[in-house]
């Protein structure tokens, strides 16, 4: 019995540690998006064009509205029923608060022999009313939202380079990490 429990624990821990990120994203017409999601985006009166996508990943199927606002790429994610999940803003790693950045950097240094940050996104979660404020003034400390940092890293471990996606909370504690499947680039080389 103990052995079975041990193996079960081992499987759970290893699956939590680093799952493989499986994701597929494809463009759709705005009319295919849920009405609730469309209403939310319409009310924002965004100055630039909004592109709609469906994303299927380890977490299920979601709808995403992508646009450029205040020189940042924004991605607003909705559930299948059009309920707002989060808002992501592409930025640079240097924009993260110094103490948090230090903690995140330590995580990377502990995990990899060598690493390079490929992409940083601020992920905002909270009440719809609060998230709307992000599009009034794109960043304001008075907005009551939970901030997470989604970081894509190219990391070298045991002489092998892999691509990972990390999610850290506002304090810089690791929430989740996923390993990417390396995309095939044969057609660009041969």
């Amino acid at each position, binding site marked *: 019995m103990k052995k079975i429990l041990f193996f079960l624990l081992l499987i759970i821990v290893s699956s939590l540690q680093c799952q493989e990120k499986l994701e597929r994203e494809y463009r759709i017409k705005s009319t295919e998006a849920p009405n609730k999601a469309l209403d939310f985006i319409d009310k924002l009166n965004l100055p630039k064009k909004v592109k709609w996508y469906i994303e299927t990943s380890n977490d299920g199927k979601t709808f995403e509205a992508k646009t450029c606002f205040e020189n940042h790429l924004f991605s607003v994610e909705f559930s299948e029923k059009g309920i707002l999940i989060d808002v992501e803003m592409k930025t640079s790693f240097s924009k993260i608060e110094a103490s948090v950045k230090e903690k995140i950097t330590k995580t990377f240094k502990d995990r990899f022999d060598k690493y390079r940050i490929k992409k940083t996104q601020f992920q905002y979660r909270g009440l719809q009313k609060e998230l709307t404020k992000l599009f009034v003034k794109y960043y304001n400390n008075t907005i009551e939202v939970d901030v997470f940092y989604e970081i894509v890293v*190219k990391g070298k471990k045991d002489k092998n380079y892999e691509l990972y996606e990390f999610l850290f909370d506002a304090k810089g504690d690791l929430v989740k990490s996923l390993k990417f499947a390396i995309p*095939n680039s*044969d057609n*660009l080389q*041969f």
Partner: protein
Amino acid sequence: MKTFCCFLLSFYCSNLLFAQSNFNTGFLPKIVVSKKLSNKNIWVNSLESRTFILDDNNEFSHSLVDISSIISIKTDFEQSFNFGYILRFRDDKTIHRIFQHYNFVSQLTSIKIAHRIAFEQFYQSKRQTIFRTRYRFTLEKPLSGERVDIKEFYLKLGNELLYDFTDLKIRITPYLGYQISKKDRIEFGLDYRLGEFIKNNTQNDLWFRTTWYISLN
């Protein structure tokens, strides 16, 4: 629409150049089969044929067959060094080519870009060895979403400069690609080649290319 405009532009540019120069056109089908040997090494083999629809004598003719074998060594997933050999059968002649490539592929938000620097040595009996350098820039843009997923189309645009220490050649390659499955993809498009650039005896070739990439992993 964008794809169509690119093709139209390529045709337009080439038509301007064909007016006062030698012009060949034909088919260039190619099959590329790759097999992962280890985490860092890939073995790539390809077969390519060249058939003229319209050659210098305005005739339909078979031109050549290329058989190649490459060992690709990845330094990481963005960079690799390729070492290869091409055996070319052209009429009754056999040409041996050895080459070394350095590749750098990077993924931007929705565009993938690739640089390739190459050195080639051509060996043929009773002829002096020819050395050639090449640089190629390629861009890949998915037509749906930010990445090319299965059963999705993409656009691939390439530009290559070839210099054999006597003259310069330029290649422009707009392709439309389709990811058939996780293991194979197919590309259709044009391969426009402008040769004898410096000698002012311009040679134009326009190939209709089809390439099928198969991964045996």
